[in-house]
């Protein structure tokens, strides 16, 4: 059994509890042990790097230290925003001067030896895909989905080292493995409005609406995400979008771990899918998946 340090971040303890729950369940089923990073703190997204470079590095760096103390080498991160910050600092720490300075800020020695992965990466290696295929209980046959990676997971390409920065593939492969049909669309890495829903709701509504419309047009019945911020924008704003633009999408938004959990036989209830603000259960019930 491989063991990963797991950094849930604030969303997974708050607005995206279903992501946390489903992530833990599927990892268990697939033989991956997740150990939550001890005494973790805020990763700094999405405001620290707007105010101070060193704060933006030190906050995530402080989350890498306990991982080594836990005797682990790799950290897996479900939230795309946390991942972007943690991955960035893990790259910056290759520079001995940065290491020394952050060490002084944190009052502790920093080695920069921990590898940071996004959960979507951890769960889409060939080995895991094969394993998932062998464990499928309820294939997602006929479910047409649009995979949505968001703007943070693949960028900047040199740091993120994702499979393909403009047309990423790993989530597509996973969903095809689970039996669903992945529609072709061009908005996989477009912005949903990210952290602006409070300050500039208008922008979030505009961008999210475009995404929803494009997915619908491409023939998708649902959008699958790997980011709690994307999920929250797309899932919770459909009512306001209807109010402002008149479009009634009724588009269920899933975390990829939820669909993986369903395919592996977990009931929707246990995966907390009822927490979504846009109804997702009807679609699943219609397909005999919930």
């Amino acid at each position: 059994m491989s063991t990963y340090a797991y950094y849930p971040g604030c969303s997974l303890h708050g607005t995206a509890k279903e992501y946390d729950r489903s992530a833990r369940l599927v990892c268990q089923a697939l033989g991956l042990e997740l150990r939550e990073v001890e005494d973790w703190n805020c990763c700094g997204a999405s405001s620290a790097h707007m105010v101070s470079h060193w704060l933006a590095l030190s906050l995530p760096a402080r989350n890498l230290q306990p991982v080594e103390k836990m005797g682990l080498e790799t950290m897996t991160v479900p939230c795309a925003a946390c991942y972007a910050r943690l991955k960035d600092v893990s790259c910056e720490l290759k520079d001995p001067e940065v290491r020394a300075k952050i060490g002084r800020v944190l009052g502790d020695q920093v080695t920069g030896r921990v590898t940071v992965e996004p959960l979507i990466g951890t769960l889409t290696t060939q080995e895991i895909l094969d394993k998932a295929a062998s464990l499928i209980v309820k294939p997602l046959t006929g479910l047409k989905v649009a995979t949505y990676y968001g703007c943070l997971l693949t960028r900047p390409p040199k740091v993120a080292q994702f499979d393909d920065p403009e047309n990423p593939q790993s989530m597509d492969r996973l969903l095809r493995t689970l039996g669903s049909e992945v529609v072709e669309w061009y908005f996989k890495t477009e912005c949903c409005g990210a952290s602006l829903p409070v300050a500039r709701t208008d922008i979030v509504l505009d961008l999210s609406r475009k995404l929803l419309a494009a997915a619908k047009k491409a023939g998708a019945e649902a959008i699958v995400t790997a980011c709690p911020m994307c999920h929250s924008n797309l899932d919770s704003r459909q009512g306001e979008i209807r109010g402002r633009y008149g479009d009634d999408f009724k588009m269920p938004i899933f975390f990829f771990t939820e669909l993986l959990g369903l395919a592996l036989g977990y009931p929707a209830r246990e995966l907390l899918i009822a927490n979504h603000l846009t109804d997702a259960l009807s679609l699943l019930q219609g397909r005999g998946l919930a």
Partner: protein
Amino acid sequence: MPRIGVFVCHCGSNIAATVDCAGVAEATRGFPGVVHAADFKYLCAETGQNLIRDAIAEHRLNRVVVASCSPRMHEPTFRKAVAQAGLNPYLMEMANIREHCSWVHADRQVATAKATEIIRMVVAKVARNEPLTAKQVGLTKRLLVIGGGIAGIQAALDVANAGYQVTLVERTPTIGGKMAMLDKTFPTLDCSACILTPRMVELSQHPNIELRTYAEVLSVKGFVGNFEVEILQKARKVNHLTCTGCGTCWQKCPEKNVPSEFDVGMGRRTASYIPFPQAVPNKPVSDTANCRSVRHLAAKERGEKLMECRVCEKLCPTKSIDWEQKDEIIVDRFGAIIVANGYDTFDHSVYGEYGYGKYPDVITGLQLERLMNASGPTKGEVVRPSDGKHPHSVVFLACVGSRDDKVGRPYCSKICCMYTAKHALMLKEHDPNIQTYVFYLDIRAAGRGYEEFVRRVQEEYGSTYIRGRVSWIYPQDGKLIIKGEDTLLGRPVEVEADLVVLATGITAASGAVDLMQTIGISYDTYGFINEMHPKLRPVETNTDGVYLAGCASGPKDIPDSVSQASAAAVKVCGLFSQDYLTTDPMTSVVDQMKCVGCFLCEEVCPFRAVERETLRGGKVVARINESVCKGCGLCVAACRGEALNLKGFTDQQLLAQVTALLRA
């Protein structure tokens, strides 16, 4: 006894600002053999040279040290000056106290001391200099031009018109290069073919020019005036001596679906083909990868069955089809080479945000040229490759594969701003209702009439120029959506288009690096040829007798390519106007008594200057061909028996220099 004169130059303030020149001159008076020392403001000036000449006479000097700039700058000047005073020019040595001293130090005291030490070493060396005499060798007054684009054509014509023999080697079946593919040319909009094809015909009919198309250079040996070149003539499977170019074969060839290189994939051609109607030579080549008969022969050799075709063979009225024709290697001698291998355009399939080269209606500027061209695949109708419909809205993207570190191309391709403006204008001429948008970073239009041209396109032809890089293109409802930022307004923009044209940048021609290595000339990280000097020797390479022209050394438009070609031609004519070439006497020599015949020197010599000689006793020893030797000294370092020595840089001279420094 050496009687050495030392002359210290101020180089205005270049040296004098950090080195106490008078003090240095004074200090050198005490060096062994020095009988005279002086300093002067500009030694390279006529007055400075007179100073040296007069001192040679007055003080009966038999050795001279000029302490000034790098010998790369003025060695010929001062050699000539001492020769005029009756001294062997190789008895003059330069001490570099500018590049090696004054320019790189700030502390006057330290720099002065260092300059003195540099001169001390050179004085020790010059005392051991021997008079040397330059040799003369004959030259072959024939030019090889590599590449038959406008640059190669112009250079070949200029040199041939001056009365010299020229061979032009072009790797495709026709000359003309990219210019033949263009529709109109900025900024005057003359028709590209109309101004080019007369030159192509003139070249093919010129009595002094031998044209070798479908041919490549395999190897280059020798040196300026005497290059020996192997040329590969690829098999055309058509005998060009008997072929009349009647066109039967390419009209009847049943293999009609080969993507045309000349139309950049916008059109199709047959297997037996001429690239375009005005091709020179106007005789076909049977492309062996696609010809059914050639494929049949190859399959037979592998013991497989494949239908044979032979339509052209049966129909050719002059019986010129020759399936047995093989590649041929021709060895020829030339006195000079002009490299004009041109350019290719950047492959935009690395841009994921523009669809990885997979959207049919995202095309390149060169493809648009073919669509606009009356003799192109659509007879000049600009239509969308996807559905053949006329576009109503066209978006241009400048700087694709230029000025972009992300794709490893930091440089500006120089011509794409101009050709994009030309395209926007031409489209409006084709269809006045068309809407054009140009996304650009900056407009680079620095040529006579160029800025005015771009202005006209914006003001009279109503093209909308938007400053910013496009971040994303995606298809939607049969159209393309282009998203980017208007950096002048600081706002995101979105434009809907039927056709997108990418101004793909200029890259080195495919195979450029291999070609440069074959010839032995230096090139930059992008595969463009390095000039001998970017300002003062822009058409010479670092190898004597090899010149460059056109886009081979970086992005250029047609006027620049042609100017360079004529400049290179003048250099060649200058070379050919001499009956003998004077060779540098600083070559290596073998002491045949010491040579043990191991021939390590033969192995290391990059110029193949080492020959073998059998002495009377039967012992085989090395001998240096002085007209081939470049004096690089590799063999001297390799020789274990100290049998080799380099004239002008003997072991004794170099040791004396080092000793002088260490003893000081």
